[in-house]
């Protein structure tokens, strides 16, 4: 039996321990804000926080999250008021929006570690998050705004 917490709620899991956390979140808990993009750690669409740190949930097996606290986009803030979410609204970052939960979770994790990231810091932290719609310049601008508002 694996126990973990997701968005502050305690959960127990006794299915396939090799199942990626991504599918547990999406199929079993209905947290569909976390997206599937590549299943191989290459795109960042599935990014969640594992004990506060951005992690690819497609590459994290259930057996790795025993005793771990997971936060998904749905749990980042109660009402969408996390500074990163507000900055995303201000800069109107999303186009199709599909990658954006991953981008936001990654950005929130970056800012938790580094409250004043340079362009290079941003490129390094956000490199793993693909946006096929091409919203990168607004992602960059929004991270700077959020940093200022932290």
């Amino acid at each position, binding site marked *: 039996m694996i126990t973990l917490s997701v968005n502050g709620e305690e959960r127990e899991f006794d299915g*396939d321990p090799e199942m990626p956390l991504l599918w547990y979140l999406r*199929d*079993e808990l209905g947290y569909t*804000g976390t997206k*599937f*993009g590549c*299943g191989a750690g290459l795109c960042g669409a599935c990014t969640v926080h594992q004990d506060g740190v951005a992690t690819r949930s497609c590459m994290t097996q259930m057996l790795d999250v025993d005793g771990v606290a997971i936060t998904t986009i749905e749990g980042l803030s109660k009402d969408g008021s996390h500074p990163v979410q507000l900055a995303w*609204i201000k800069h109107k970052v999303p186009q199709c929006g*599909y990658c954006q939960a991953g981008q936001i979770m990654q950005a929130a994790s970056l800012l938790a570690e580094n409250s004043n990231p340079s362009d290079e810091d941003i490129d390094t932290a956000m490199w793993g998050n693909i946006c096929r719609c091409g919203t*990168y310049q607004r992602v960059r601008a929004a991270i700077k705004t959020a940093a200022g508002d932290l």
Partner: protein
Amino acid sequence: MRAIRNVSRRGFLKSTAAAGFIIGLQLPNKIVQGQQAVEDDKFAPNLFVRIDDQGTVTIIAPRPDMGQAVRTALPQILADELEADWDRIEVEQALADVKYGPQGVGASDSVRDSFMMLRQAGAAARQMLVQAAANEWGVDAGDCEARMHKVYHPASGRSADYGELAMAASTLPVPDADSLTLKDAADFRYIGQDMEIVDLRDIVRGKAQYGIDTVVPGMKYASVVRCPVFGGKVKSFDDSAALDVAGVERVFEIEGGGGAPSYNSLGGVAVVANSTWAAKKGADALSIEWDMGPNAVYNSDAYKTLLQERVRQPGKLIREQGDVEQGMASAAKTVEAEYYVPHLVHATMEPMAAVAHVEGDKVQLWMPTQDPQGTKSFINQALGFADENITINCTLMGGGFGRKSKADFGVEAVRISREIGAPVKVTWSRENEIQHGYYHAVCAQRLRAGLDHDGRAIAWHHCTAFPSIGSTFQEGATYGLEFEINQGVVDVPFDIPNIRCENAEAEAHVRIGWFRSVCNINHAFAFNSFVSEMAEAAGADPGAYLLQLMGEPRYFDPSNEKTKFWNYGKETADYPFDTGRLSHVIRVAMDKAGWGRDLPKGHGLGVAAHRSFLTYVAAVVEVAVDDNGDLSIPAVHYAVDCGLVVNPDRIRAQVEGGAVYGVSLALNGEITMREGAVEQSNFHDYEVCRIDNAPEVHVHIIESDEKPTGIGEPPVPPFAPALINAIHAATGKRIRTLPIRDQLRA
């Protein structure tokens, strides 16, 4: 401003038990449908707007959204004419139904082709509300006015909210289109404003629902293994290991279609399970023997050589004016070059996914589709469901770029649901998406030009070869369709006396499809690069030379007995090709980019321009190439003239994104086939632009009151050639084959 609340269809049914009124239109642009009281279970045909007695305005978004913001822009148009308060609007996504008129999203035409219709729908509703108020007050409708969700009678100081008037309005006759008074552009309230997209707040909270997020009660999950080669078939398969996977319930073969691929599913082996993960694990455990079929001969390397040979021979004549060979013979100098663009795949962030539920002779589909009605009619024709028994729920799309115009993945879900007698979600892996696409066509081109003693072009010869999208719908089609050859070949508007354009044959061995801006990518890359090569031969500045080729501002129309000008299916009287507008965007982009300024070592500026989808776009790219041949793109300046702008912020977003799409295809985009199978599989070997390569894009929108045209695709074509020309300016190296990859390192 508060975000617009989105109502699901189900939510709507509950909340609108209250009566109200609705307006319908018959296309094109003629109002015929009477209004009627809304009932729970009854939707009258042709509905775009509904107002309940609380004054809540529900606007039907006829077309689905893939990131281009039509769910916002189209309601903006209607709400403006209606004089509705944006904060009291709900947007509801239309089901697939011909009654809504065109619903496809894929030719940058949503605003272009829905603009008037939606203005009329809003104006008709407004006029009826005004009339209802006038009747109530016993005054002349002409003395009343509608403003922000209310009707006013200034003389008496009376006013009434739309909610109070809805019921009375619903009993009035619908005015016909000719009697409508549309607003003056100066009075636009929302058109031209940066309205926030209606899904924005849901997106940033992870609440927006895409096709892949659909859940219906009792749903199963499926994964499909398809033949690596298009046209191949299952010979035999062993499902024992798959069935051993916990959660796997059934494994069976699903048929595909024969003949042209069209919208049909591919056929293969389906694994049905109780979770996405179990289905995928089961699919991985299958062992299948394939009959690879006739396309196993396909090798994209050899094909490239073949097409290159073909464009050196005479092809089918598609445009002629003057006498090219005579022009060449009298030229002081000739220039010649060949260009090549490989296959590309869309790589939408949301892979293909669909939920189907077949119950008896009825089918319900939830699908991120760019072509709601095409999907419906294909399911009707190929799978035999009666049109009225097919319900297609258009979800948000996590990107489309042309891939989700194809119904294959929805058809596949329907076949599986029919087999298992339960609802099912079919999720494609990224590998599936990359290896079973409808690919952007490879394209080989040869261009020749003759220049006189002053370097002026007197002859232009362009030959192109690419497998046509026609082959997707008609087996054996080898020549480009009219729309394809009119994307940067026939429609090149240069002022040159002798012109010949040809199209050489190319057989398709894979499914060929639309890909954001389609053949414009290949052709605009080649001809804009070639202009720069001609300028070099003429000893001229490439920007000045491009402008000189454009000639005096004029309406360009190359039609003659040998040339068919397509003009994106529009009459030139309605949407003339105004070369002056094209020259203007070139000048603006060059000016904003500081064309001609001193640049640091290793930097260069390049320009390219193209009118596609009736929109005029020019791009100037600044590139920096270091001693190792690594490049970066410090800035891009775009000037775009897409006529009247509905939502400038979303125009900018599309241009920014179009540039990034251009970076992807220019730097690394390439799909190759060996023995008919795609060699790439995921983002490690099909690399797309990441944040470090994303340029800062400056978008200059030309103010215009011309008809709106389109913006989703037009920013893409000029990007690669502007970059290639910039690289030439920076390094002297001329790249003629995309992608660039390590060509600068050699």
